[in-house]
């Protein structure tokens, strides 16, 4: 009985989708666009760092330091300057990111075994590029100096610790981004579309025609959630396929675990979308609230910036941000091959949010004003 009503409502959703193919187009085209273009754009790798060298020493050693910097692939020399002011001018014109100052008497002090000092200034306008660029320059300088010191017999050669990068040996940022992009797609598609659908029914008045019938609120809300649930799974499958075919990234862990997580997370997002639409009175309100949620989700969920680097109050806040768990699951299963048993706590949290948000969607749906 209830089931027949639900099927009738679902049939209506399907017919409406067929009449207005916009939703279908978004579901099919957006993942392709996002998965093809964004991995090209989204790169935190710092490249093309321009270094301005203020050479006050004019020694062969200073020239070697400059050559050592130029040899690093990510760095290039913007030019040599006789004064710090000249180099800063280049920074202000946007032509240099890091300034290395080699003080007078640097080579002399170094050969004498005294501890000379070098000064590196990074342009903090772009914090990532400046800071990482500065550490590249520092690394290049110290390895040049270590080589020179060894050759001149000033210090004994020393073993640096060996490094192993597990799970992503080439440190490819793209591998890190791609599972995250799938999360972003679900956030956008499964959050916005159901919200738009409900606000649309409110504006056209059809929701009232349904409200005056004895349809149960759970039945109605389910009829809104299920289509986007299917759409979300199509999106995930599509994105995984593109990840595999175009970017050569296949999940190390089980695909079933990935889909289980997707099933839960889609419920979280569409439940939220429906709830927001239920309480908004206009399309604009709904969009702005939805947009704010999506921004907070993307920023606080660890999609672009690590949660670990947030202050502790913000980290506590992220516990209430559902995508945080989904992003963690996606990355663990994709890159580390984690099994369900190893990350079950994330699943538990996601399941709790899914139940909570769907209940919220049903609770905020008012048949009576």
């Amino acid at each position, binding site marked *: 009985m209830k089931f027949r009503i639900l099927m009738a409502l679902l049939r209506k959703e399907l017919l409406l989708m067929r009449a207005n193919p916009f939703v279908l187009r978004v579901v099919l085209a957006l993942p392709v666009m996002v998965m093809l273009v964004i991995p090209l754009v989204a790169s935190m790798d710092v490249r093309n760092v321009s270094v301005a060298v203020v050479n006050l020493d004019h020694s062969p050693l200073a020239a070697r330091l400059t050559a050592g910097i130029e040899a690093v692939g990510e760095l290039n020399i913007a030019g040599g300057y006789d004064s710090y002011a000249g180099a800063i001018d280049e920074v202000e014109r946007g032509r240099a990111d890091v300034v290395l100052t080699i003080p007078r008497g640097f080579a002399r002090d170094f050969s004498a075994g005294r501890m000379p000092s070098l000064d590196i200034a990074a342009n903090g306008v772009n914090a990532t590029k400046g800071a990482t660029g500065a550490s590249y320059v520092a690394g290049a300088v110290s390895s040049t100096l270590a080589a020179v010191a060894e050759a001149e017999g000033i210090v004994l050669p020393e073993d640096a610790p060996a490094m192993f990068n597990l799970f992503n040996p080439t440190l490819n940022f793209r591998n890190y981004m791609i599972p995250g992009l799938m999360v972003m797609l679900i956030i956008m598609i499964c959050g916005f579309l159901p919200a738009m659908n409900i606000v649309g029914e409110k504006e056209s008045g059809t929701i009232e*025609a349904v409200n005056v019938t004895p349809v149960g609120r759970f039945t109605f809300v389910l009829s809104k959630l299920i289509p986007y649930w299917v759409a979300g799974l199509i999106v995930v499958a599509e994105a995984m396929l593109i990840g595999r075919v175009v970017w050569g990234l296949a999940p190390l862990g089980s695909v079933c675990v990935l889909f289980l997580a997707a099933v839960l997370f889609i419920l979280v997002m569409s439940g939220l979308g429906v709830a927001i639409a239920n309480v908004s009175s206009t399309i604009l309100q709904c969009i702005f609230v939805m947009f704010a949620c999506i921004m907070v989700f993307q920023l606080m969920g660890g999609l672009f910036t690590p949660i670990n680097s947030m202050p502790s109050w913000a980290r506590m806040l992220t516990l209430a941000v559902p995508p945080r768990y989904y992003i963690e699951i996606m990355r663990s299963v994709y890159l580390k091959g984690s099994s369900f048993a190893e990350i079950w706590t994330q699943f538990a949290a996601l399941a709790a949010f899914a139940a909570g948000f769907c209940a919220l969607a049903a609770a905020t749906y008012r048949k009576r004003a």
Partner: protein
Amino acid sequence: MNSDVIIVRNLTKRFGAFTAVDAISFSVRRGEIFGFLGANGAGKTTAMRMLCGLSIPTSGSASVAGCDIVTEPEPVKRNIGYMSQRFALYGALTVMQNLRLFATVYGMSDADFRQSARTLMQWLDMESLADTTVSSLPVGWKQKLAFAAATIHNPSVLFLDEPTGGVDPITRRRFWELIYKVASEGMTVFVTTHYLDEAEYCDRVCIMVDGSIRALDTPAELKKKYKCDTVDAVFRQVAQTALRSADA
């Protein structure tokens, strides 16, 4: 044995400081065509929305088809049909798809639906339009379809909110024939209108002014009481004191 299908006692709805419906009381008998008259903003639609379980009353009580509208809004909905002032069916769906949706929602079986849809469509002269997309229908046909969707499950009470708004006089005439027909089969019809000539077709009319009921009787009695020839003239007399502007 109570033959009153709708019983309203002191029903009130306030929006903030504004009292849209002010303690109205009346009852409607089974099979009656009950007309609700009033200017725009008099509170007709608000009162009707409360009776349909779409709006929660601020105070007072009412029962529709034996169910309390405050405590049992969902059972009320099983026994009523509602046609809103604004056309609210799915424009992208065909006539049949819309009817089937609402029939199923009211729990009709497929066989029942097919049968009543066939008779209803015949009756409304809409057979040839069964597979037409609703948004492409002219206004009059849309109204007929909305009427069909509200009556397909054969409710005991039918609420019509200005069903003839914006249609031509001939279609209006046809519409009232439909209303008579369902009423003759025992359906109670509760209809709001601001076309005063239509009031003459009702068994009883109730005139609302500024949220409260000013007059309630059969059209004949009203005319006698106010010594007028038409309900229109009665209304003019009763509504003289209206404070709310016509389009508030």
